[in-house]
């Protein structure tokens, strides 16, 4: 069976771009967001998805199944995929993942499968589930500057049509907590991994020098590092999941990424945590929150 490579990052952290780029390496099959492992069984996962108005199941998983099991991402194949899942609601989520990873290996012959589900970074028990199911998995931790992530989350919250005004305000007030909480979950989780099982990269470094960063990831995973292989990683738009899927499973990746999947290098202007907690929205934080946020940011290479 192919070996699992799992991307760990909170939402709005370039995770769709970076995971699709890594997944374009010739020896890796890059999935969209499968969401399988958020719950123990497939039945619980489907229930979780339906609460989020994904009535047929996780769009990323349905797209991957349509692609690998039924020969292409069409609306009909997505319906077949959802029927297949409904007949296996009693299955453990890890068994569904193993099944789809086997299919990827059978179809593409790649020794690695890359999965990313940003929601997992909020769920310690789900992270543990992944570790127990695949003890030899590799983990790529992708970070983004906390102040930039907060801005991106604010924008996402303000334009989310599913939220009423009160929900929006509540989320805007607490959005900054998402960064330290998810980073802490990931760091605690990774502290018990075997040496060499974990790599951390800054999303901003990928934008600034993608070739070097992707080469480092390939080298760390023991994969090909020749120019041809690395150049494949710089073309995320070639992934079968980088475009809009069929109408009944359209996304499975960040909508912004899907609307513009090409990699565009650049040096994003980074915010300042010190400024944020002294004159910005974080000035009302208690001293312990300010100190904690700054220490964690510094530890991850941000000021």
């Amino acid at each position: 069976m192919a070996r699992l490579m799992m991307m760990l990052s909170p939402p709005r952290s370039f995770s769709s771009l970076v995971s699709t780029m890594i997944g374009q390496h010739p020896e890796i099959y890059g999935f969209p967001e499968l969401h399988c492992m958020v719950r123990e069984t497939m039945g619980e996962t489907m229930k979780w998805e339906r609460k989020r108005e994904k009535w047929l199941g996780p769009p990323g998983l349905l797209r991957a199944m349509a692609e690998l099991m039924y020969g292409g991402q069409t609306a009909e194949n997505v319906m077949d995929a959802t029927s297949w899942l409904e007949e296996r609601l009693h299955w453990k989520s890890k068994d569904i993942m193993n099944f789809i990873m086997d299919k990827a290996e059978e179809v593409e012959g790649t020794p690695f499968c890359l999965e990313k589900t940003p929601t997992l970074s909020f769920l310690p028990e789900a992270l543990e589930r992944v570790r127990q199911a695949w003890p030899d998995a590799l983990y790529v931790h992708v970070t983004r500057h906390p102040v930039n992530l907060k801005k991106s989350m604010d924008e996402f919250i303000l334009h989310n049509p599913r939220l009423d005004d009160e929900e929006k305000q509540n989320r805007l007030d607490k959005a900054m907590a998402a960064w330290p909480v998810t980073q802490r979950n990931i760091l605690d989780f990774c502290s018990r991994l075997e040496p060499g099982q974990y790599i951390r990269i800054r999303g901003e470094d990928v934008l600034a020098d993608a070739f070097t960063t992707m080469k480092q990831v390939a080298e760390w995973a023991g994969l090909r590092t020749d120019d041809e292989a690395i150049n494949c990683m710089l073309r995320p738009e070639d992934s079968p999941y980088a475009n809009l899927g069929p109408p009944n499973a359209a996304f499975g990746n960040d909508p912004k990424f899907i609307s513009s999947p090409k990699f565009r290098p650049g040096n994003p202007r980074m915010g300042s945590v010190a400024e944020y907690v002294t004159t910005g929205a974080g000035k009302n934080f208690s001293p312990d929150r300010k100190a904690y946020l700054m220490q964690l940011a510094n530890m991850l290479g941000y000021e």
Partner: protein
Amino acid sequence: MAHQKKKGDSPASKSGDELRSPSTADMPDLAESALNMFAAERDLLLTGDLPDSALPQSEEEYVSRDPFSADYVEFRLSETRHRNEKQAKVNTKVRADLLEQPHLLEKPAESGSRGAAAIWRSLRDMLREESHTVMDNSGLQELLMLKRELETRKRIVEAVNEGLANQLKRLEQRLSVYDKEATQIVPAKVEIKKD
């Protein structure tokens, strides 16, 4: 290991010069204390029993882990509270309206997807499983019954198809009185800034 203060070490017992600059005699003590502390922590790490997971194992552990984790738990609770309140409000205020208009009981997107899924499943089962099993393992009588059943279903599907086509035609006529632009499904606008 913390640096132990000795009697007579208090600032009050030192002269002004000694207070302004630490005496060089103290430096080896600091270095030694740091080394001892490191050695103790290293021994603890190497010999002590570390838990299998460093992640919090209970909600109390999660809340007490750091101030932002506590904020996050509070946020999740307030979200659930708000969602339940909203649901209760809908249940009490709109119940009468919903009873009069049962098609509003479910969200259109949900019922649409569920309906489509159910129709697809039933057609797929009919096409792939039931009929094949009967065709492969049945005698003449059963085959004739299956033929009648499939012809009936075919007529039903054709009738539904025709009915849907008529409804869509009628809907188009209704939509034709509106502004053409308002009835189009407009794709999301993507603004690309040019440097």
